[in-house]
C-alpha cells in the first residue's frame, strides 16, 4: 500500500473514531505523504519512512497547535519543532496529528483534558489511562502506527497498560526534552508507544542521544534495534514482591504468567525487594508539585495563551490563570505551598531526601539482577468518572510507575496475552540499559505469538 493511501485510511479512521484521541490533525499530512513516497520510490528515504506518528499535544510541532489539552493554550501555535520531532521528520516519519491528554499531563486517566476525556478503545465506558491518553488510544485503535508520549510518573506506561500497547519510558537524560512542555523537569522523559517492541526500538534509536538544546542529555546516540533479536537466556529478572501489594487478582495472575513465559525463554527468575514502594506516591507527588508550580509560572496570560484583563497586573495574571483546570490549579497551589520559605524544610526538603532513598533502593535491587518486574498498574482500566472526584484515589494509581521516574531509570509496560481488558507487565532496568528491556519484551512477544 502506498503511504498516501495509508494516511488517507488513518485520516478516515480518525474521523470516524469516537475515542476523542486527537486534538489536532496535520493539514499537510497528504502532501507530506507524497513527498515521503517520492523518497521511498527513489530509494532515498530515511529509516522511519512509511511510519505514521501521532504526537502527544505537549510536544512542539512547528506550525501546529500546542495545547497541552488546556484552555490556556487552546490557540497557541508552536513556532518551533521539538528535537524529537525534528529527528523523526529527518528520518521521514510522518506526523498525522496531535493527541489528547490530561491537561498539562496532570492525571492518570485521560479525563482532565479541556477537550473532554479520551475513551478506551477496548471499552468506551472506561478510561484509556493517562496522561498520554490519546497517544496510547490512537495506537491501540489503529489510528496511527506509533506515537510519542511523555512520562513524568507513569504517563506513558499507565495508558499503555490500560490500552494494551507497548510503552517505554527511557532513562532520564537519554532523550532530549527540548520542545516538551514541562511538567516536572527532573522527571519528564519522552518515549515511544507502539504496537510491537521492534517499532519502539526503532523509534527510540532515532530520538535518543545528546542535544545541545537540552543540557540534561549527554549520552551519544545509540542504536537499539539489535536488542530485539537478542537471546535472554540467563538474564536475571527480579520479581519485586511489594509491586503486587494491593494489586487486583486478575492482574497478579496475568503478570505471574508473563513472568513464567520469560522463564520459558531462559530468563532466571529471582526474588527482589523495594520496601520503600510504600512511600513512592507521596514522594513523587511532592517532588512533582514543587517543580510543576515553577514550570507553570510562565502561563501568566501576558505573552501568549489565554488572557483575561483584570484591574491591575496581578489581577490580570490571576484572571488569566482561571483558565486552568481544577487538577492543574490544585497542583500549582500545593507546589507553591510546599516550596514557600516557611514550609519548604518540612515538605520539599523531606521529599528530596525521600527521593534519594527510593533511588538508592531501586539501584540496590538492580545490582542483584538485570531487570525488575511486576505489574505496571495494580488494576485494569477503570470506568470513566470512577476516580476523578477523589484526587488521592487517583494519585494512588501511580504507585508502581513513579519509582522509575524518581530513580531516573528506564521502564516499559508490556501488553500481556490476556482475554478481556488489557494488563501490562512492567520491566525496569539500570540507567542506559533499555536494550535489556527491549530484549526481554521481544522475547515475551515471540513466546506468546
Amino acid at each position, binding site marked *: 500500500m502506498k503511504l498516501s493511501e495509508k494516511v488517507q485510511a488513518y485520516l478516515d479512521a480518525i474521523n470516524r473514531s469516537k475515542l476523542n484521541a486527537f486534538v489536532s490533525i496535520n493539514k499537510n499530512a497528504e502532501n507530506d505523504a507524497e513527498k515521503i513516497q517520492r523518497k521511498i520510490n527513489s530509494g532515498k528515504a530515511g529509516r522511519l519512512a512509511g511510519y505514521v506518528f501521532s504526537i502527544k499535544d*505537549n*510536544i*512542539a510541532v512547528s506550525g501546529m497547535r*500546542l495545547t*497541552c489539552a488546556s484552555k490556556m*493554550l487552546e490557540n*497557541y501555535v*508552536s*513556532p*518551533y519543532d*521539538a528535537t524529537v520531532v525534528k529527528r523523526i521528520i529527518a528520518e521521514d516519519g510522518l506526523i498525522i496529528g496531535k493527541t489528547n491528554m490530561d491537561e498539562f499531563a496532570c492525571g492518570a486517566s485521560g479525563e482532565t483534558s479541556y477537550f473532554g476525556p479520551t475513551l478506551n478503545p477496548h471499552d468506551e465506558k472506561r478510561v484509556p489511562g493517562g496522561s498520554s491518553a490519546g497517544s496510547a488510544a490512537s495506537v491501540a485503535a489503529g489510528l496511527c502506527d506509533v506515537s510519542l508520549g511523555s512520562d513524568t510518573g507513569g504517563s506513558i506506561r499507565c495508558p499503555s497498560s490500560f490500552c494494551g500497547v507497548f510503552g517505554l519510558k527511557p532513562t532520564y537524560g537519554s532523550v532530549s*526534552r*527540548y*520542545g*516538551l*512542555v*514541562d511538567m*516536572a*523537569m*527532573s522527571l519528564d522523559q519522552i518515549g515511544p508507544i507502539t504496537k510491537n517492541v521492534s517499532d519502539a526500538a526503532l523509534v527510540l534509536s532515532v530520538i535518543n542521544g545528546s542535544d*545541545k*538544546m*537540552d*543540557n*540534561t542529555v549527554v549520552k551519544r546516540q545509540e542504536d537499539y534495534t539489535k536488542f530485539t533479536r537478542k537471546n535472554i537466556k540467563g538474564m536475571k529478572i527480579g520479581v519485586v514482591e511489594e509491586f503486587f501489594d494491593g494489586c487486583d487478582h486478575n492482574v497478579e495472575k496475568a503478570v505471574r504468567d508473563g513472568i513464567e513465559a520469560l522463564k520459558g525463554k531462559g530468563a532466571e527468575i529471582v526474588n527482589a525487594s523495594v520496601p520503600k514502594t510504600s512511600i513512592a506516591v507521596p514522594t513523587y507527588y511532592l517532588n512533582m508539585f*514543587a*517543580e510543576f*508550580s*515553577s514550570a*507553570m*509560572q*510562565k*502561563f*501568566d496570560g*501576558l*505573552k*501568549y495563551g489565554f488572557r483575561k484583563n483584570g484591574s491591575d*497586573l*496581578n489581577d490580570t*495574571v490571576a484572571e488569566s490563570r482561571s483558565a486552568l483546570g481544577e487538577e492543574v490549579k490544585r497542583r500549582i497551589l500545593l507546589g*507553591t505551598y510546599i*516550596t*514557600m*520559605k516557611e514550609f*519548604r524544610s518540612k515538605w*520539599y526538603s523531606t521529599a528530596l531526601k525521600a527521593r534519594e532513598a527510593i533511588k538508592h533502593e531501586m539501584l540496590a535491587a538492580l545490582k542483584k539482577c538485570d531487570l525488575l518486574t511486576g505489574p505496571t498498574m495494580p488494576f485494569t482500566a477503570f470506568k470513566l468518572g470512577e476516580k476523578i472526584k477523589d484526587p488521592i484515589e487517583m494519585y494512588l494509581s501511580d504507585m508502581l510507575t513513579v519509582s522509575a521516574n524518581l530513580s531516573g531509570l528506564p521502564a516499559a509496560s508490556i501488553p500481556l496475552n490476556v482475554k478481556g481488558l488489557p494488563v501490562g507487565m512492567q520491566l525496569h532496568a539500570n540507567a542506559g540499559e533499555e536494550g535489556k528491556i527491549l530484549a526481554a519484551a521481544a522475547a515475551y512477544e515471540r513466546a506468546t505469538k
Partner: protein
Amino acid sequence: MKGVKIGLEIHEQLDTKSKLFCTCPTDYRDAEPNKSICPVCTGQPGSKPFGLNEKALNAAIKIAIALNCKIVADKPVQMRRKHYIYPDLPSGYQRTSESIGVDGNLDSVQIHEVHIEEDPGRFFLREGFVDLNRSGTPLIEITTDPVFDSPQHAREWLEKLASILDYLNVTKKEEGTMRIDANISLNNGNKVEIKNINSFRNVEKALTFEITRQGDLLRRGQTVERETRHFDEKMILTSPSRKKETEEDYRHMPDPDIPPLTIKKYLVDKIRKTLPELPQAKTKRFVKQYKLSGQNAENIVSDPYAADVFEAVVKTIDPVLASNWFVGQLKKTLNYNNMKLRDSKMTEKQLSSLLKLTEKGKITERAAELVLREMVLRPAEPEKVIENLGISDFGDLNTIIKSVVDKNEKAAADYKTGKKEAFEFLVGQVMKITKGSADPEKIRKLLKKRL
C-alpha cells in the same frame, strides 16, 4: 557619618556575543524590538535553556578574582530559579547562579559574594510594551557587606569598582548598563533597600535623601519601616515600591534543566594568569617609575585606555608635564565634550607632538589648549591644526613681538619715554595677532625684554 550603614548590590552586563542560555546576540541596542529573540529567551512552552555560556562564566570568575574573592572551585555550583511575575520576565522566574566567588575585598570594602544571572527583558509601563531583546543577557552581580559610612564613600568606591571592571574588559562598555541596589540603615535600625539606581551620582543622591528622611523619622521618635524604595531622579527623592515586594518569597529552587557546574581549579589558575595589571598596582608603579604625584597617577590610571596612551606619550615627553596635561587640559576638554579618551580618534603620536611643542615653548599653553580642543574632535597633526586655526604665525611669540615692535616704532619710542599706554597698545597688537591665544603675562615679559 555616625550610625550610617550602607551596602551595595551592583549589576553589570557581561560583554559576551550571545546570551547566557541561548545563542541570541546580546547587542540588543542596535536591534529592532523583539528581534534578538528565540523560543528559549522568550520562554515559549517546551523550550529549555541551552548550556551555560562559558564566556560569561569565565568573565565572572575573572571579576571575582580581581575583587580578591575566594572562587567556589571543585564543588558543584547550581543555577537556581528565582520566581516572580512581571511582564519582562517571560518564564516567570529568573535564573541566577549560586556564588562564584565569596569573601572578597576591594579597597577595604568586604565583598560578600559574586554570581551570574540573566537580565530580564524591558517593560515600558506607559506604552504597555515589552521588548525581550535584553531577556537572557548575562549579568554579574556583586554584593558588598554593609560597610559604607557615607553616600560619598559609596560613590567613590563605585568609581573604583567601575575602573577595575574597565580594566578587566569583560563587561559592556555602553552607558547605563550598570544598575545598583543600595541598602541603608541608621543606628542599627531597619534596613531600607533602594532598587535599580542607574548612576553613581544618583546612588549618592538617593542615599543622601534617605539619611535625611530616616533621620527625620528617628528624631520624631518614629521607626523606619523595612521596605523597598525607588529613586526618582527628577524629584531627587525616594518613594516606597509596591508593598508586596518586601514580603515577596521567591521560592528559590535548583533549576532541574541545568546540571550543576563545577569550576575546575586549573581553570581558575588559567584565568588568574590572564588578569591585567589592575589600577592599584598601576598607580603605585606610575608614582615610582614616572615620579608622578599619587593623585595624578590615580587619576590617569582610573581609565585604562588613558593609562596606555600616557605610557606611550612619556616615551618622548617629560612624564610630569604629560601627567599635568592628562589630568588638566586633556581631561577638561574631554569632559567638556562628554567624551572619554578612547572615544577620540586622536593618536598617541599627535598628542605627543603637541606636548613636544609646548615642552619646547614653541607654542603657549593657552594656544596648545586651543589646538587640543580641536584635535580631540578632528584629529590631525598639531602643526596642521595650528595652521588651520590661523595661529601658525605666532608659533614663535618672539617673532611676533619683534614684528609688532618694528611696525610700531613710535609706540616703542613712546614707551621708552615713559608712556604706559604705549606699552598696553603694543601688548594689544600682539594679542590681536595671536587671536587672544597667547598668555598676556608672557607677552609682557617678552615685550619688556625686547624693548
